[in-house]
C-alpha cells in the first residue's frame, strides 16, 4: 500500500537475466507492500528463474511480443487482481524505485503519470533525429494535453484504475505504439496526463543505440505512429 492504494509494479523483461533480479530486490526493498510482477516476454535466458528467486511473481509469455505485448499482460493482471495503480518499471535498472511514491501521489490529480527525464532533474541528453522526434512529440502532446509532457517516450509510468481498465483490453503491440500511440489515445479520450521529474540511472545491462541511421528511422516511425494514432478510432 502506498498512499492508501494497492500498487503493482510491472517489470517487462526480455533476456534481462543480468539485471532483473537486482531490480526486483531493489523494488521490494524500497517499496515493501507493493506487488511485483515480472512479465517475461519470451526470454531465451534465465530471466524467469532469476526474477522468481528474487521474490517477484512471474508471468511468462510463450513467445516474444515486445514491450507493448508484455505491458498489456501486466495491466490485465493488475485489472484482474484489483490493483488501484499499475506502474511500469524497466528491467535494466535505469528507473529508480524511490520515485514511485511521487508517481503514486501525482495520480491524485491525473489518470496517467509519466516519470520524465527532461523535466529539470537529471542530466539525460539525446542528439540528432532522435532528439527532433522527441521534441516534436512532446510539443504536440503537451499542446493537446493542456499541460506539459516533456518526455513522451519514458518507460517509467503510472496508471490509475480508470487507465488500467482501458489498458487491460487495449494496448498496442507495435514498436513505439506502446509509448506514443498510448499517450495520444489517452489525451484524445479525455484522460488527464501529468509528469513527475525523475533522474534516470545508467543501465545495468544493455546499451542504448546512437547510430544516425537508426535514429533517422526512429524519427520516421515515430512520425508515422503519431499520424496514425491521430486518425485511428
Amino acid at each position: 500500500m502506498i498512499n492508501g492504494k494497492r500498487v503493482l509494479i510491472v517489470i517487462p523483461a526480455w533476456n534481462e537475466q543480468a539485471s532483473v533480479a537486482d531490480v526486483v530486490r531493489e523494488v521490494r526493498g524500497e517499496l515493501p507492500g507493493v506487488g511485483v510482477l515480472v512479465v517475461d516476454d519470451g526470454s531465451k535466458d534465465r530471466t524467469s528463474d532469476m526474477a522468481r528467486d528474487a521474490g517477484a511473481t512471474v508471468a511468462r509469455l510463450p513467445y516474444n511480443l515486445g514491450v507493448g505485448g508484455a505491458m498489456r499482460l501486466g495491466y490485465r493482471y493488475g485489472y484482474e487482481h484489483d490493483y488501484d495503480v499499475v506502474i511500469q518499471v524497466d528491467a535494466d535498472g535505469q528507473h529508480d524505485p524511490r520515485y514511485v511514491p511521487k508517481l503514486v501521489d501525482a495520480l491524485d490529480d491525473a489518470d496517467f503519470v509519466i516519470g520524465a527525464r527532461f523535466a529539470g532533474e537529471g542530466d539525460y541528453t539525446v542528439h540528432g533525429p532522435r532528439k527532433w522526434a522527441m521534441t516534436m512529440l512532446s510539443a504536440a502532446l503537451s499542446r493537446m494535453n493542456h499541460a506539459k509532457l516533456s518526455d513522451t517516450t519514458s518507460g517509467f509510468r503510472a496508471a490509475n484504475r480508470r487507465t488500467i481498465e482501458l489498458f487491460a483490453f487495449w494496448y498496442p503491440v507495435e514498436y513505439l505504439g506502446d509509448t506514443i500511440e498510448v499517450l495520444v489515445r489517452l489525451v484524445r479520450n479525455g484522460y488527464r496526463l501529468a509528469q513527475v521529474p525523475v533522474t534516470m540511472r545508467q543501465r545495468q545491462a544493455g546499451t542504448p543505440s546512437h547510430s544516425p541511421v537508426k535514429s533517422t528511422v526512429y524519427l520516421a516511425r515515430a512520425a508515422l505512429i503519431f499520424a496514425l494514432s491521430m486518425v485511428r478510432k
Partner: protein
Amino acid sequence: MVKLTILTAISGLAVLSIIFELVRRRQLREKYAILWGLVGIVVIPLAIFPGLLNPLSRAIGVASGVSLVLFLAVVFLLVVCIHLSWEVSRLEEETRTLAEDLALLRTEMRERVGQ
C-alpha cells in the same frame, strides 16, 4: 494463337486441380476453396476462348479482351493480398490474446500450488 490457347488452358486446368487436391486433403478452408474455384470457373473458358471478352471490352473502351482480363486480374490479386494482410493481423491479435491467457493461467496455477 492456337499454341497460346493450349498453354493458357493447361495452366488454368492445373491451377483448378491444385485447388481441388488441397480441398480434398482438407488443407484449404472452404471459403478460400469456393473463392479460387469460382476464379477457375471464370478463367478456364477465357483461357480456351480468349476472344470471349472482346465485345465487353470494346463496350467499355478497352482495346482487347486480353488486356481487360489482365487488368481485372491485377485488381483482383491486389484485393486478395489486402484481405490476407488483414486476416494475418487479426490472427496475430488472436494469438496474442491466447498467449496472454496462457501466461496468466500458468501464473495463477503456480500461485495456487505455492500456497
